[in-house]
């Protein structure tokens, strides 16, 4: 059954990557896969971090001389796989999509240096830029959660996640990018529940015997609930000067200082963290991998993040 599910996932992934594709969110992510940096120039992407493995594909409609842009992204998250090597957290399968539309002022970029006309040769072009995006998303996941002992079939639940997030990215120079995202998202409290295993006895041990046959199902124990969160994310990305590279590989280095907050009661929280990423030679906003460490209430969480653009 597990093999069949994996084959289905592989087929889905290969079907996705055969499409013309551009992902929207960057791979400058915290360990929970969140970011406020939307670069919109990457190809179809596979992003792996300690929290999940996500394969995404999308389309971006953008023109150099038009302010408006729009696009979409569909993604799938694995329920298992190599992420379990790095984290004992139970992963649940999730699939969904995002639609984005936004504004990227052509006059704020290098074209006019803010003068409103083409630059002459001697004039320095602007290194500043900015763009704003609205991200509307939906995803669905399935899992098993209960606060009492009961058969897995009775504990199975589906969760519909909705999100509406506004994003603003501001490029201050060739080395500094600021990202801000705020919105609303329907979430659940699975992170607060205890990972457990449901066991259903299929064949009881014969009298005098000690061996029985049980069927197991991974799930969660606790009082499951859903709520509306008000996430506010910020990222301050520093691209180190391009002459600083990793010897032998040529990778550039980027440092992402971030905050991840939820300002809605009763799940108000605030995380802070820092990520160090290696990025592609010649494409400094394309991370190939990185480490991200976050702090929340004295607890430190370290996550490994890797990305591959098809």
């Amino acid at each position, binding site marked *: 059954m597990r093999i069949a599910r994996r084959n289905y996932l592989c087929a889905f992934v290969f079907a996705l990557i055969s499409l013309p594709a551009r992902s929207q969110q960057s791979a400058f992510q915290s360990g929970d896969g969140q970011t406020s940096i939307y670069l919109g*120039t990457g190809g179809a992407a596979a992003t792996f971090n300690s929290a999940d493995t996500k394969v995404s594909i999308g389309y971006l409609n*953008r023109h*150099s001389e038009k302010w408006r842009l729009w696009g979409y992204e569909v993604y799938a998250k694995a329920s298992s796989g190599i992420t379990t090597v790095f984290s004992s957290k139970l992963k649940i399968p999730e699939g969904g999509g995002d639609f984005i539309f936004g504004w990227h002022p052509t006059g704020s970029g290098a*074209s006019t240096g803010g003068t409103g006309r083409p630059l002459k040769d001697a004039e320095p072009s602007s290194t500043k830029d900015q763009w704003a995006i609205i991200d509307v998303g939906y995803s669905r996941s399935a899992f098993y959660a209960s606060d009492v002992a009961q058969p897995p079939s009775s504990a199975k639940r589906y969760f519909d996640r909705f999100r509406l997030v506004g994003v603003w990215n501001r*490029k201050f120079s060739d*080395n500094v990018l600021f990202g801000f995202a705020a919105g609303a998202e329907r979430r659940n409290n699975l992170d607060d529940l205890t990972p457990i295993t449901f066991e259903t006895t299929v064949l009881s041990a014969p009298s005098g015997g000690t061996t029985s046959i049980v069927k197991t199902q991974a799930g969660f124990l606790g009082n499951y609930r859903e709520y509306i969160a008000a996430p506010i994310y910020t990222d301050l990305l520093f691209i180190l000067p391009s002459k600083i590279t990793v010897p032998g590989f040529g990778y550039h280095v980027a440092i992402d200082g971030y905050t991840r907050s939820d300002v809605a009661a009763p799940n108000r929280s605030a995380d802070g963290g820092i990520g160090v990423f290696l990025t592609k030679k010649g494409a*400094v*906003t394309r991370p190939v991998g990185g480490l991200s460490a976050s702090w929340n209430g004295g607890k430190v969480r370290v996550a490994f993040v890797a990305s591959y653009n098809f």
Partner: protein
Amino acid sequence: MATKKPATPVVLSDKRALTFIANVQTPANAVHLFLNGKAIDMGQDGDTWSGKEPRAVGDHVDILFTVNGFDGDDWAMTVSIDCPDAAVKILSKKGTVGQPGGHGFGKTVMLAPDPCSQS
């Protein structure tokens, strides 16, 4: 009494209409290309930006190319003339943001009387 000069035919322009093809490869966040001061609208497909527009030009075309990217982003651009048989490349250039000339350049390219004869 002033005599009125006979009207002479005025040549408004010795320009011809050529279709230019622009192609840029870069991960930068914004690129812009101007031919004779007017921007060519290029559509983005991942790291590829491309556009195709006609221009009335004389014996030369002024090309202005600008890139807004991050320190270390590479770019490569070409401008070609669309001809019946094959496009004729008139300019090709590479650079890296953060290096001298890495944010773009301006250049005047002289055009042959019949650019398509070179295809």
